[in-house]
């Protein structure tokens, strides 16, 4: 395959994993985060420690990245999940920047000069496999009792609490899972780039992930998938407009958000069932049309005969 296309597909796949986690946190549990690049950084550095320093296989690196990001998010969650709404958002923002600055200062892992020479273990194949596993897990989680509880927390926290749902527990669960996803995405990114630098995990990256989730449509897994692919490809497709590329990118996102305020797939899910429904509707529409044509043909025939 063309190396350029392959590269963008790989990046889409990596973004997709991070976005999948954020989709659960923001789209289903209703918590906004601007610090997920921090979890990606934790995952990227942990995985690199396992594969480059300790020489272990990539699988261990990925597992370790998920676990480490999950543990850190659990600690962060304990401190911040009692905060409501915007305050949690600001706390995550602070966390993301803090992680980056700690890595900048920590010379053992290269500091801000970065850490080169990480094995190039991320391939399109293993990323696609992880993508599929990731999507299936989230899709099943969302449809389970736990998923429904998360949605209840998103819709009306007080009511959910009154109904006997431990809201703190479900917010924590969403946060930990989303952080683990971000950790894995970070590990994949590090092993794709073969180089990690704290600069790569800045607030811009966190915002980018949140933008993808909102762009795809809150509470829609297929929306997040499409959003991740579209928004990773868009800046590269826009290279034709040269220096105006980032302006065009911004305008395209604004245009879509105005056209579809709930995001590309807001409140809609692409599943085999929804496909069947869509086709059934189409078929019904066709039949009605065909039937009406039959009638109108009759009409015109009558008209001609007159």
């Amino acid at each position, binding site marked *: 395959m063309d190396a350029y296309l392959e590269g963008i597909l790989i990046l889409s796949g990596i973004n997709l994993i991070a976005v999948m986690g954020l989709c659960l946190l923001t789209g289903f549990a209703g918590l906004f985060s601007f610090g997920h690049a921090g979890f990606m950084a934790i995952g990227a550095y942990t995985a690199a420690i396992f594969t480059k320093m300790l020489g272990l296989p990539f699988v261990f690196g990925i597992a370790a990245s998920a676990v480490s990001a999950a543990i850190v998010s659990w600690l962060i969650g304990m401190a911040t999940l009692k905060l409501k709404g915007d305050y949690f958002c600001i706390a995550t923002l602070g966390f993301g920047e803090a992680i980056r*600055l700690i890595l*900048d200062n920590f010379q053992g892992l290269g500091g*801000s000069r970065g850490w080169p*020479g990480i094995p190039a273990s991320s391939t399109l194949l293993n990323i696609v496999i992880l993508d599929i596993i990731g999507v299936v897990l989230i899709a099943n989680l969302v449809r389970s009792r736990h998923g429904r509880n998360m949605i209840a927390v998103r819709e009306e926290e007080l009511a959910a609490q009154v109904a006997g749902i431990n809201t703190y527990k479900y917010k924590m669960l969403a946060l930990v899972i989303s952080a683990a996803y971000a950790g894995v995405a970070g590990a994949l990114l590090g092993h794709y780039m*073969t*180089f990690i630098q704290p600069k790569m995990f800045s607030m811009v990256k966190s915002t980018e992930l949140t933008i993808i989730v909102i762009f795809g449509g809150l509470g829609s897994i297929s929306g997040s998938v499409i959003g991740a692919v579209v928004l990773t490809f868009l800046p590269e497709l826009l290279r034709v407009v040269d220096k105006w590329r980032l302006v065009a990118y911004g305008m395209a996102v604004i245009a879509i958000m105005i056209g579809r305020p709930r995001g590309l797939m807001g409140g809609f899910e692409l599943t085999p069932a929804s496909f069947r429904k869509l086709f059934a509707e189409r078929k019904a529409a066709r039949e009605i049309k065909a039937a009406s044509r039959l009638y109108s043909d009759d009409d015109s025939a009558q008209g001609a005969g007159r």
Partner: protein
Amino acid sequence: MRVRKMLFVMLAALVLISCGGTKQADVIKVGWFGALTGDQAVWGNNEYKTVQMLFEEMNAAGGIKVGDKTYKLEVIGYDNKGDAQEAVNVVRRLTSQDKVVAILGPNASGNAIPIAPILEAAKVPDIATVATNPKVTVLDGKVKPYNFRVCFIDPYQGAVAAGYAYDVLGARKAAVLYDVADDYSQGLREFFNQNFKAKGGQIVADESFKFGDVDFRPQLSKIKASNTDIIFMPYFFKEVALSANQARELGITQPMMGGDGWPSEQLISMGGAAVEGCYFVNHLDYEDPDVADYKARYKKKYGVDTELNGYLVHDAVLMLVEGLKIAGKVDGEALAKALEKVDFQGITGHVRIDPATHNPTGKDAAILKIINGQYVFQQKYAAK
């Protein structure tokens, strides 16, 4: 429908004509990438314009001779916002879709490091301009076969700064202020401290800030209390101007010293009197007769002064042409081998590539002093 068909035929004809056109005159495609947007855009635009200008001039002069054929040069440039991920994307694009023979740039080390595996897979050499991190060309003791550069490296620059401060300026105590979130700044600070201490000097203050900060007074107050002989400031002109102004306000009178992040028109206009009498290490002397011609040509064509990067990308272009001549054919693999053998007089000095490190050897650094708002050349200085 007929109109559409006609349009299609015309388009097809146009494509055919344009294809035929490129086939007649042999063209060597060369990639360039760097930041055309974002906070490093000044340097990226300067590099890209210089490459375009030089290629136009060479083509106007009949092109370059490689082997027994004459070729025209064409540059394909992409913006990467100074972002490492986009650097990987554009290099993949340049090598697999545009099929370039070589790539010029980038200026940032953090962008030059991750592209190495792609270059190796595609067998396309890259000549970085001001990427001064040693790891751009050498990793874990092994030289990267397709990465080259035309500038000196951070350990050398740090050694020059420390050596000049200690031996020539007679400083025994040095204070360092650096940007902890910047790779370039961290590198220079590390090598300055190392060398200054090795000479017998003392680092009396080692203070940091992070990119985006505009208030340096707390750190500067500590530096003032440290009673230092000199202040080393290894970061970029914007922060240099801000911190220098604040230092003078606090009554710090000691001379300041910096690296190749300093030189810019902006430094003088923003820094003004605060940077008077300060020193910095540079890749070249701006008044050197060797650079005067390029400087004038750039000014004439674009109406603005060239920045530091322009001089280095100029020599990167010369190095590429030299390499192509030695290789005798337009092929990335042969070119990478040939680049190890180049030996030519560039405008920033004599460039001879060391095959073991792919760094230019024997390029002396220039020490410049700011006097009356001008960069005044002091001396060429080689670190021992």
